[in-house]
């Protein structure tokens, strides 16, 4: 493991959803989790295990019912919607499974979008967007409309957009779910390289061969962490 700087500290996170009048469904049941800078973590679990809910909390898309979420020494568990928006804008780069890009908008405009919300000037936006597209190896598609590029290219553009604000975490939710195995492998290789450069990566997946790229694998069942181990070179035991 690299330097021990805690980036994320979840303590006793509980997330409940109301179902019916007096009943609640507990999606997360006391999660304690610390993620350090530079880690590559895969969160696994069957459907209904709470991995999506955990992704929402980690991505500052939602706040926990109970417990504390400390991100870069700030407790964001009770942030307002707009404060969370700012955290998402500056600290988290999302890569989703599908619907990553705005339709009928150019690739470059898509990558510029987070910078627009951050109030960055047009000149700097263009420079940074082109540099990010260069980095994911798709600079020549900058002027293309987002619905005129392939699935693998879409995920690369999404990664470029995730990187452009230089966030603390790249949060990828089933990023290869819609891709063929060859393209999946390419994308995962690329994400691995980003981690080698020092980016903190959290990936949500139910596929073992995707999780295999991560250095740490966390397994969730019924809203609880049932296993948290280093991946290393030994892949047995999951």
């Amino acid at each position, binding site marked *: 493991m690299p330097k021990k700087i805690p980036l994320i500290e979840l303590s006793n996170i509980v997330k409940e959803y109301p179902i019916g009048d007096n009943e609640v469904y507990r999606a997360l049941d006391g999660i304690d989790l610390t993620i350090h800078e530079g880690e590559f973590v895969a969160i696994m679990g069957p459907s209904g295990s709470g991995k999506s809910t955990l992704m929402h909390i980690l991505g500052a898309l939602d706040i926990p019912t109970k417990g504390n979420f400390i991100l870069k020494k700030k407790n964001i568990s009770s942030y307002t919607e707009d404060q969370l*928006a700012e955290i998402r804008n500056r600290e988290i780069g999302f890569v989703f499974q599908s619907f990553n890009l705005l339709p009928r908008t150019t690739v470059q405009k898509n990558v510029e979008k987070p910078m627009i919300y951050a109030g960055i000037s*047009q000149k700097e936006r263009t420079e940074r967007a082109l540099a990010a597209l260069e980095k994911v190896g798709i600079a020549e598609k900058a002027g293309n409309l987002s619905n005129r590029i392939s699935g693998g290219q879409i995920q690369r553009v999404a990664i470029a957009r995730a990187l452009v604000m230089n966030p603390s975490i790249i949060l990828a939710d089933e990023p290869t779910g819609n891709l063929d195995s060859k393209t999946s492998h390419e994308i995962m290789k690329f994400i691995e390289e980003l981690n080698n450069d020092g980016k903190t990566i959290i990936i949500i997946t139910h596929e073992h061969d995707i999780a295999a790229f991560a250095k740490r694998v966390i397994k969730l069942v019924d809203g609880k962490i049932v296993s948290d181990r280093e991946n290393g070179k030994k892949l047995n035991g999951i």
Partner: protein
Amino acid sequence: MEYKEIFISAVQALKINKMRTSLTMLGIIIGITAVILIYSIGQGAVKFITDELASFGTDYFQINPGSSQLSAIAGSTSLTFDDLEAIRNDTSLTNIRNIAPFAMTSVKVQANDEEDEYLIYGSTHEAVEIFRPEMVYGDFLTEEQTLGSEKVAVIGTKVSENFFGENTNPVGETIRINNRIYRITGMLNSSSALAGGFLNNSLFIPIDAVTNEIVGEERLQEIDISVYDQNSINQTIEDVEALLRDQHNLDEDDENDFQISSAQDILSTVQTITGLLTAMIVGISGISLVVGGVGVMNIMLVSVTERTKEIGLLKAIGAKQKDILTQFLMESVVMTLLGGLMGILLGTTGAYAISKIANIPFVVSIPAILIAVGVSTLVGIVFGLYPARRAARLSPIDALRYE
């Protein structure tokens, strides 16, 4: 977030559904077109009347016999030469500049072996000061001619064309009016669209010739009075009214047996009518704008639902509630404002075309255009606010999960 960016995104979003956007804008286009069109034509009509009255001058008023406008035509005899003399001789009426009496009748006129019926104005030399016609040939009736009741006639340009042909000087020719021979001493032309119609089609002869020889009765159809000071014209009208009531021995509770009307009365009548018409059309257009606005709201709600996932994505990458709100509000405002601008263009073009056809002045009202721009923007904000707030308040997870 920059407004330029929001604007560009809004235009892009609206372009995706061109047909839907255009149909939604239609309500706004119709409303604004109607307002601009009617307002512009109304203003044109007022300007037309104002210009007409200004060519006569707003410094005069007229007295007709009878208690209503029509009784003069019906042959009311309540206005007499005695009344005329009474006004002339009242030294307290210092504001009066000219008094012109008129006795009118319609008779057969012959010249060059042709015969037609025309309106004959019996008047005095003072009529020229009131009508201010252009004398194409010769002169108007002189004081000498009217006092001596000479057999002279001044004819309108249309009358001259009929008997003697176009571009012919009729001065010196003779004409038979009611079987008596008159010498033509002048030809007049009035370019006024309102008055030209009858002035150019009439003949003017000394007043006594009409009352003594044609009608055989000393009655007047009209007395026109012009004043020195326009601002005190209403005072002069009141004084003349009092004098005539006295002349006619009317009791306090008797109604006038004559009518006094001034150019300003006519102008204010026209303004009242145009004002009412404009208010009515503005009201109807207001309904059209509300209906249009509801259409905008409906389409924006559909758009918010359709783009729920997009809203989720934008929220995930850092859009705040305000950003989403402005984005959707911008779309509805762009839609209504564009509709408004098209309405202004259509309304103005339509008003121009109608002004050409109806031969009235073309008036572009800058305040009306500015109000139209303001109103269409307001419709966009008012009816776009609810859908935009709904979009802004969507929870990011619900929006991302939406299928």
